[in-house]
């Protein structure tokens, strides 16, 4: 961990961020089930990100927020609400309407020593910035043999389930996870949202930060003083015996609900919140699957060449003699995101998860 603390003295430095190996595979806390500190408050995921950003900006004057409508308006989801008022127009920048421009100038700002946090307004609008992200941002550290740092965070409200029009409900994380040089994470609880956005800002590598937009208003406890697990570690949110179900971002809640619904039937499901799509914390997952001998991976993103495929391939390789069933996937179909009246059918839900669980158990 090479991040120098640039902020005012006295703030509690974050623990090492990036070691997925050695992650907490021991009895893991239920979401927000950690020992609550005195500063603990209940807030939504949106507010937790806002608080995390605010703290990051307080701690380090080089942290900037930039994007479309992030300033005066505070973002279309109000995630950056109040930041421009408190940190000024030079640190919270309403940019022109050009995503390639946002990321391209963020790279320049990072080269000058800043730590820009860019917002892409919706998942489906990240593509105009694709070259700047996968060919410039992702490769520049490597190209420079480590002489430059690119501490750029790209926040992306992602996923469906909000009844939106096209391009507002996509899950493009796979496009970025396939790209070396990027880190790709997603939070599922307010506490993680608060921790992870700060860890992302502290990272000296570029981080794609996928925010589960349909969960923005779900509430949970946030203890600002608790010590976070590493950014790229998975967490066992619920222990179980018969099968492991892994998910990240918005699908974590769905999977937890499925596990709870299956319990009365006597189906014991272990739930792993992956938290990081790239790198994957395969050690935590492997440890779980060696016990349960079955795995289902759930994401909203299309299955074909999605993260679930990679997990299936690697876990099968690692646990070949332990698996009682092939790793099954529940995910988006090989179609564009459908009109919103069909999204309930399109999106993985509790039933689709349990259907896959049943199929895996039937092997």
């Amino acid at each position, binding site marked *: 961990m090479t991040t120098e603390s640039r902020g005012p003295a006295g703030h509690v430095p974050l623990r090492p961020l990036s070691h997925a190996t050695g992650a907490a595979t021991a009895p893991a806390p239920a979401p927000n089930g950690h020992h609550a500190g005195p500063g603990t408050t209940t807030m939504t995921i949106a507010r937790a990100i806002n608080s995390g950003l605010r703290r990051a900006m307080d701690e380090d004057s080089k942290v900037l927020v930039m994007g479309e409508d992030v300033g005066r308006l505070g973002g279309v989801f109000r995630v950056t609400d109040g930041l421009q008022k408190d940190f000024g127009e030079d640190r919270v920048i309403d940019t022109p309407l*050009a995503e390639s421009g946002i990321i391209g100038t963020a790279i320049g700002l990072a080269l000058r020593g800043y730590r820009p946090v860019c917002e892409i307004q919706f998942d489906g609008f990240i593509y105009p910035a694709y070259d700047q992200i996968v060919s410039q941002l992702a490769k520049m550290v490597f190209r420079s043999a480590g002489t430059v740092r690119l501490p750029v965070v790209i926040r992306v409200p992602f996923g469906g389930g909000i009844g939106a029009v096209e391009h507002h409900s996509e899950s493009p994380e796979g496009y970025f996870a396939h790209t070396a040089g990027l880190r790709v994470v997603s939070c599922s609880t307010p506490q993680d949202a608060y921790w992870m956005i700060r860890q992302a800002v502290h990272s000296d590598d570029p981080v794609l930060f996928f925010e589960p937009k349909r969960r923005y208003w779900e509430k949970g406890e946030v203890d600002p003083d608790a010590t976070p697990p590493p950014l790229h570690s998975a967490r066992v949110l619920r222990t179980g015996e018969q099968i492991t179900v892994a998910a990240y971002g918005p699908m974590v809640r769905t999977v937890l609900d499925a596990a709870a619904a299956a319990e009365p039937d006597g189906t014991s499901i272990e739930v792993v919140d992956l938290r990081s799509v790239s790198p994957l914390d395969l050690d935590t997952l492997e440890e779980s699957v060696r016990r349960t001998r079955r795995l289902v991976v759930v994401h909203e993103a299309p299955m074909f060449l999605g993260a679930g495929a990679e997990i299936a391939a690697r876990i099968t390789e690692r646990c070949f003699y332990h698996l009682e069933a092939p790793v099954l996937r529940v995910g988006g179909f090989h179609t564009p995101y459908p*009109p919103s009246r069909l999204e309930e059918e399109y999106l993985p839900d509790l039933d689709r998860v349990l259907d896959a669980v049943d199929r895996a158990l039937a092997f």
Partner: protein
Amino acid sequence: MTLATAGSLPAIADPCPIVQLLTPEGQRVDHPDYPFDVDADQLRSWYRDLVLVRRVDAEATALQRQGELGIWASLLGQEAAQIGSARALAPQDYVFPTYREHGVAWCRDVDPVTLLGLFRGVNLGGWDPTEHNFHLYTIVIGAQTLHAAGYAMGVQRDGAVGTGDPDRDTAVIAYFGDGATAQGDVNEAFVFASVFNAPVVFFCQNNHWAISVPNERQTRIPLYRRASGFGFPGVRVDGNDVLAVNAVTRAALDRARRGEGPTFIEAFTYRMGAHTTSDDPTRYRIAAEVEEWKLKDPIARLKVYLARSGMAGEEFFARIDAEADELAARVRRECLAMPDPAPSAMFEHVYHEPHPLVDEERAWFETYHRSFADPATTTAHAEGSLS
């Protein structure tokens, strides 16, 4: 003053030429470059267009408030920019709209109910673009301007420019907003259109806002001047003056059809409502600005002109209002009756030609879906959301 605005920026509001044929007060004025022969029938029919599209727009906003639409992007305030330009089109001309061109859609005979499908979430467009020469709404800002430039290159290759045959010569028009001018795609469209001299009109509705971001954050000079950097003409027109918009657009389309290449039109107008029904503009703009623009209303000025000049009277206006109400009622009725698509519709038209993965997923889905419908095979899980 903050850094971001430091330095010697020329003010965007610098006085600059703007084409106007009808003042906000309803006064007819002349412009040397855009002679305009008033035809009472035409003006009345435009008045009708303006009132009807505003009324449908209001109904759609109401439908959204009542949960019948997921979202609505109102054209309030931009009626003249849309009707004026779209009424300049020939049938063979082709239109590439954004998501706000409900007035243009109206002129291209897309039924307003059909238009609601996208916003209701039952489809992603719902009309056949080739039937109306009106492309699907494009939501990704600016992308459609390149499609327009390419389509226009196709028109050239078909020999459908410069023949002098008014039924054959074809122009293309791309609509986009002030915010869109910052996008790479839009500027690339300017490059392609200008180097190939393609028959396309770039019609920018500068409604002063891109959601919460004012026009000054997209450009530091008046937008119509962008075209000069690419070597084709740009003109600013009073976007709330249906006569001027029509005259300027007609001239630009004619120019394109004659084979003289692209034109940029900046229709200077104002987004009177929220960006969409999800937006709250009081967070970022002051009421006084909106009040000022109310005085420039596109419908009011035409009504005053029609009335003062005796081209229309109370009875005409009342008749149009009644027609508008009827139309709105029909739109509401038919919107509510719009069926949801069949679930497995999402597997249709992903490709034109057969595709094994889509077929496999469709087959899986249909079996899975049926398992909920058939009580004999229903699983025991708590929530059968698909049944």
